[in-house]
């Protein structure tokens, strides 16, 4: 194990992954935080266990119960179990396990916003994968800690019993480490002894920091005595709990010492909760970090008479740990009183009640078992849930255990989650009730059975509102779809580092991919599983497609509320939008700001994540060789999913507009081709075509495409994207495989008037052109470009009058100019005028200034035109502009729809936009 200067880490981000078990040990447990933030993030992890200090957890749960917090997920979708130890159960470990991989974090942070989401905590992170197993010993060491708690009967039996299920999800994880490990705990030996074993060289410098010291600084004294360093540096912050007088006394025993004030450079007010011992020698350095404060119980004792602590002992050459201090600002303290150092008093735990108290409870179907800390004698108990007593048919008292056979209704209420209030009838007045969240082991195990099913996929058709939920949805999509080189690599070689991008655009290479392996993977196979059978679980891809098609019920998947649902606490995030006072000056503007700000549906970070996701899809979709490897059905299925996803993302402003547009254009081109290349739908064989058509139909891909294209005029597109959308629109309107017809338009917009309006919008989108393009349209058949002409406004004769007219003046001579070519140029000019919305259709005129006096005009009202070439004038009355075929198709469709229109959908909302 080595260490190096590293960037900071975000604990919640490191929890992401396709884990089968998540196990957290902590001293304090902020379960509100876990419920609100992490439980959602880990929603797809079947086994989630929090092992917290028994005293702290008990206080927290009592507080939750008495302040009306239901926390209904505890016990039924995750466990929050106490570590019942006489000292502090202080270890801070996050262990994430999957069948072939794992992630382990050992550090100083407790479960909560302070420990997991603030600066000032220090962590070590270890990864494991079957193909990169070199940290397995660290994982095994963490396992010995957890198993050790169970062996010492420090866990409630239901929680201990579940550990076997946790380990079974990671068959690679041995019960004990086979080699030396950096991860240590003090179940058997004090951490100081283990550190001393490692440091067998003379210590020059000892640098220590911990937020809590013994009242008599005994641990620091022991360190000095053990290592006899040439110099001791004690780092303190303003929050350090330490007796300054005792510190001075202890440091007097060192050969040389200093005290330094230390702060997080970027955030001086941050609470520095990290703990470390840093020993420097001539040739080596050693570092102990982790949970242990500078106290006897933490450092000098094993668990039997001390705390439960974990740490990481690392060694290296001089300078190895320099990076540790790069985030800190250190100031020498000559006067300890200057920063007000003081020993923070620790409140003794309240004395235990004189009567039996509940340790834990367990619900198995209708049987509720309540375990007291002592036998309750012959007394009875009252169990209430949400202030209503439960009813039961039988109650049996077996020493400290009470077994209650609940009736079905009561059992169902308890199973719904939340605290039970248990009162011992014989406890007497003034007795404290006990509060307990029953372990529902069966429900937890059931989650494991459902491990292959992702919670959010059924709701992809309608993305959630909350940022965290959106992010979780993105993660599930990442873990489900095989759509680009990154996702293919993860399927083929999970756990390995992705290859470096092969190009400046960040696209990684994929040519070394083992495609056979990709195709064998269940994720890939999920794309190709034909039709769903009731007795077989649907694949994740089938779930997504059914969600988009609104046919989840056919899969037996309930289309009910969001699975991340909604503890009662969720509602607390809501702030009233409208009830701020308007009485003072300027309040309105503040409201404007506030409401507009809150209207932003997601954070920038989520938006960026989705944008990256979309860009990867675009790049892969444009890579025809990659698409060939992926196969047409998989590619088309991805297209159907992304088509729907992109429309939603754009509508909700969750993705960069240009990126989404590029992706849409790429996927439409993939499906239906371009004017110069056929699409997937055109070139696959008949069985594949049938499968693809079914996917496109169920995903309503054509309808979504049509609506998106028509609505794209509203988007603030850059010119390149606008042109790309226009070109693809023109192509799709007449593409036989896309098959734009009346049923499709009606399917996209059932209201006839609005369907006609939709076509009007589509005309606008397909018409969008810039001046130069349109000039080129007129001039290119003459061998010219827009640079060869300019527009002039002048008075010209029209019939017997003279009018002001816009005239296209061609200043470059045109070779072989003829009457026919002039007339055709005028006809093209009519088209350009329409497309450009120039409103000059009534009178079109081109003057060929480079050909002396040659000119041509068409008077729409009179129905006549004249071409004058080489002094020869020819009249004509047949004028046939080469209208684009896409325009003809849209005109025809619009006429059909308007003819069909009879009843307005709502008064006043009925005029066509065309």
């Amino acid at each position: 194990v080595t260490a190096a200067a590293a960037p900071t880490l975000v604990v919640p981000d490191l929890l992401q992954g396709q884990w089968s078990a998540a196990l957290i040990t902590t001293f304090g447990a902020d379960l509100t935080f876990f419920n609100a933030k992490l439980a959602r993030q880990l929603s797809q992890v079947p086994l989630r266990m929090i092992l917290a200090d028994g005293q702290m957890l008990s206080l927290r749960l009592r507080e939750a119960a008495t302040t009306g917090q239901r926390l209904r997920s505890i016990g039924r979708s995750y466990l929050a179990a106490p570590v019942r130890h006489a000292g502090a159960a202080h270890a801070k470990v996050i262990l994430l396990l999957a069948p072939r991989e794992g992630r382990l974090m050992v550090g100083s942070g407790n479960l909560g916003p302070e420990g997991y989401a603030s600066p000032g905590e220090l962590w070590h992170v270890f990864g494991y994968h079957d193909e990169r197993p070199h940290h397995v010993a660290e994982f095994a060491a963490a396992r010995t800690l957890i198993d050790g708690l169970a062996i010492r009967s420090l866990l409630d039996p239901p929680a201990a019993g579940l550990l076997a299920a946790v380990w079974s999800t990671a068959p690679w994880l041995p019960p004990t480490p086979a080699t030396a490990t950096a991860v240590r705990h003090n179940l058997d030996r004090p951490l100081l002894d283990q550190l001393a074993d490692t440091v067998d060289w003379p210590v020059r410098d000892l640098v220590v920091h911990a937020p809590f010291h013994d009242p008599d600084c005994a641990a620091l004294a022991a360190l000095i005595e053990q290592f006899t360093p040439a110099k001791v540096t004690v780092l303190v912050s303003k929050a350090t709990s330490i007796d300054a007088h005792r510190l001075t006394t202890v440091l007097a025993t060192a050969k040389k010492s200093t005290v330094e004030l230390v702060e997080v450079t970027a955030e001086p007010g941050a609470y520095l909760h990290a703990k470390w011992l840093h020993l420097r020698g001539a040739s080596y350095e050693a570092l102990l970090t982790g949970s242990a404060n500078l106290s006897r119980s933490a450092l000098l004792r094993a668990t039997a008479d001390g705390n439960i602590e974990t740490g990481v002992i690392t060694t290296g050459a001089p300078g190895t740990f320099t990076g540790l201090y790069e985030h800190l600002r250190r100031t020498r303290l000559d006067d300890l009183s200057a920063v007000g150092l003081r020993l923070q008093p620790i409140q003794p735990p309240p004395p235990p009640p004189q009567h039996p108290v509940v340790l834990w409870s367990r619900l198995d179907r209708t049987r509720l078992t309540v375990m007291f800390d002592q036998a309750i004698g012959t007394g009875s108990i009252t169990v209430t849930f949400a202030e209503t007593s439960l009813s039961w048919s039988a109650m049996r008292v077996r020493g400290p255990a009470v077994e209650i056979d609940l009736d079905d209704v009561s059992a169902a209420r308890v199973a719904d989650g939340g605290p039970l209030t248990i009162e011992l009838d014989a406890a007497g007045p003034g007795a404290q009730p006990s509060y307990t969240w029953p372990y529902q082991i069966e429900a937890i195990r059931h989650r494991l059975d459902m491990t292959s099913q992702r919670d959010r996929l059924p709701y992809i058709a309608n993305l959630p509102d909350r940022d965290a939920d959106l992010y979780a949805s993105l993660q599930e999509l990442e873990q489900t779809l095989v759509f680009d080189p990154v996702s293919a690599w993860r399927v083929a070689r999970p756990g390995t580092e992705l290859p470096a991008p092969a190009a400046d655009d960040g696209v990684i290479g994929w040519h070394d991919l083992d495609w056979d392996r990709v195709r064998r993977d269940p994720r890939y196979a999920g794309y190709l599983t034909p039709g769903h059978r009731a007795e077989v679980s649907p694949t994740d891809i089938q779930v997504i497609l059914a969600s988009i098609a609104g046919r989840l019920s056919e899969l037996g998947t309930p289309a009910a509320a969001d699975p991340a649902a909604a503890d009662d606490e969720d509602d607390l995030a809501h702030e009233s939008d409208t009830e701020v006072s308007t009485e003072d000056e300027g309040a309105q503007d503040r409201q404007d700001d506030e409401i507009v700000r809150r209207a932003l549906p997601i954070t920038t970070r989520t938006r960026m994540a989705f944008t990256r996701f979309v860009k990867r899809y675009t790049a892969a979709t444009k890579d025809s060789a990659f698409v060939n490897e992926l196969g047409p059905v998989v590619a088309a299925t991805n297209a159907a999913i992304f088509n729907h996803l992109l429309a939603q993302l754009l509508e909700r402003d969750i993705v960069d507009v240009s990126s989404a547009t590029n992706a849409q254009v790429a996927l439409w081109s993939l499906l239906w081709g371009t004017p110069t290349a056929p699409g997937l739908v055109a070139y696959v064989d008949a069985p594949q075509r049938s499968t693809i058509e079914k996917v496109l139909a169920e995903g309503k891909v054509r309808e979504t495409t049509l609506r998106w294209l028509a609505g794209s005029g509203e988007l603030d597109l850059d010119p390149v994207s606008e042109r790309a959308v226009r070109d693809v629109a023109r192509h799709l309107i007449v593409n036989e495989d896309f098959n734009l017809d009346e049923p499709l338009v009606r399917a996209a917009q059932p209201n006839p008037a609005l369907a006609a309006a939709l076509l009007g919008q589509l005309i606008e989108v397909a018409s969008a052109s810039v001046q130069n393009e349109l000039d080129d349209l007129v001039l290119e058949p003459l061998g010219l470009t827009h640079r060869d002409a300019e527009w002039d406004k002048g008075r010209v004769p029209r019939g017997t009058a003279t009018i002001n007219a816009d005239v296209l003046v061609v200043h470059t001579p045109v070779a072989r100019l003829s009457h026919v070519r002039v007339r055709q140029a005028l006809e093209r000019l009519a088209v350009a005028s329409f497309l450009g919305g120039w409103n000059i259709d009534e009178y079109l005129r081109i003057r060929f200034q480079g050909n002396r006096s040659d000119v041509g005009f068409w008077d729409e009202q009179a129905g006549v035109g004249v071409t004058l070439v080489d002094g020869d004038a020819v009249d004509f009355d047949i004028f046939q502009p080469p209208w684009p075929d896409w325009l003809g198709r849209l005109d025809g469709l619009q006429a059909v729809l308007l003819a069909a229109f009879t009843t307005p959908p709502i008064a006043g909302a009925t005029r066509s936009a065309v």
Partner: protein
Amino acid sequence: MTGLGWEHTGPIWSTRVYAPAKGQDHLGLGSVSSDQILPMLSPGINVLTIHPRYWSFYCWVLDSFWNADRPRTRASFRDFYRPREALFAMACHVCDAAEHPPAMGNVVGSLRIRAKAGDEWFNPQFDYIKEPLGGYGLYYRSTMEATDTIAVANAASRFPFDAATPEGRALAAAFGSAVGDTALGARMASGDALTETVTRADLVAFAREACLCQLRLADGFDLPLLRDLFLHGGREQEARARRYTLRMLLDLSQAVPDTAIDQTTFRQLVYFRTLGTLTYQPRSDLRDTARRWRTYQAREYFAFIFNRLLGWVTRRGLHESDDGLFPLPAERLRQMLDHALDGNTFAQDRELGRRPVRAGTTAADFAATLAAEVDVTPGVDEPWPRHDLLDEHALYDWCHSQEDDPETVVAMLAILLLLHRRVGSPDRLAALAADGLIGRGGSTRNGMSRFFTLLGPKITGGATLSELAWWLVNDYVIVQHERVATSKLPDDTFRVRRSGGEQLRFFQQEAPAQFADSRYLALSTTVHEVGLVSNLWQPGHRLSQAGRQLLRDGDLPAGALATAAAGLQPATVTG
């Protein structure tokens, strides 16, 4: 190969994950009033929908939009809408009608338009407000939908953009008739892009017909329709609740005809029903509505206690912890509360007698002392006598600054104990239980019935003020704030947070304590502008004939809106 957890395993510093944010309602209590109680009392009128004529104006703009030859898109509507609302806002600023108040408030866009009010020319493309759809998008759209005047575009309706319902079109037509003869009105009704500047004279001519102040005179146009809408629009149950509240306002105004009723006065009137020597005794058919409003204001005093204590704890905590630089032991905060209780001059300041209020004073004793001064015996439907120094409003008035002195802690306890006697004792809770308002908030947002049910045994059990204060601060301020702030993550709105169980961390953020808006401004403006009463904010307010009829008969004839809608020509399509 490199990567965290593989070659690089640490140690690695954690970083801040959530960015600090200002937020509001940090105990989640304000939402109970604004989102649960007030919508039951005045559905369809909220604090931001001040002027009823905006219903007409926005319907008119929507209808004009649909009649114009334009794409049916949000962007197209935005371009159509913004110059029209800018012109309307400007017109409301240059209006010279006799009825126009000297300072008409809450005209959408005022903040930017105000500076233009003296100009001779106005550019309709002026960027008058940040929100793309101005006051319609920000304030009125939801209530217009609730009162069935617009159909909102959404996935279900498949409308590309909002459209007026037949009732909305009737309003639009009536407003259009009112302004149709003005040059500017005609231009605005057309599909004109309104890119050219408009003269002040045109604006003034338009304002004389269109201004918000002119609704009261629009008998031949939109006034009867809006009156019908506010008394009967939307779902029957909601219309009834709104109608009864508007009637209660009229009723209440007659109790103090010569008193200007601002929001503060309104709060005291609905809560105490006494003002000086005047007493408000609701009509018998308005008893339930008046009782609901009393419960609403009780909730406001109740929420104020906890929000004020949050401010006290936060600011004092920041002071003690060197602006949050180090954590403070929870025990230290408890000592601070006890010191405040032991060192206060509340009894002296509030003329409560010679016996001081101290940390060891029992809550029961303090409650009895207060009750000896403040008469809390009248029932939930009777007027409650005032006390200049000690009743709930007097104490609120005394403490709603940010001066975190010891007396504030005592005052908050005093308000709580008074509220307990007035609405929280078992018999009062039973009396108020019928409509459910007293329980609103439940266990997540500190419902009053749940709280007072827990408080009662503490008082009778001999809890001291020290114990009571710590219970409030710990369970209902700190824990509650943590719950609310945690639920708002990733916006970090923490003001105070426990760390390691016994330490408190304080964060440099504001912790204001104020009442949620009672909607009184919107309600009083509505009853005034739909011609039921003169301006309640001025003394000498009188009911109009229609107002008297509404109060006396319980309702005015319904159907004006439906009749007008039925008389409209069906819409037709042009290609």
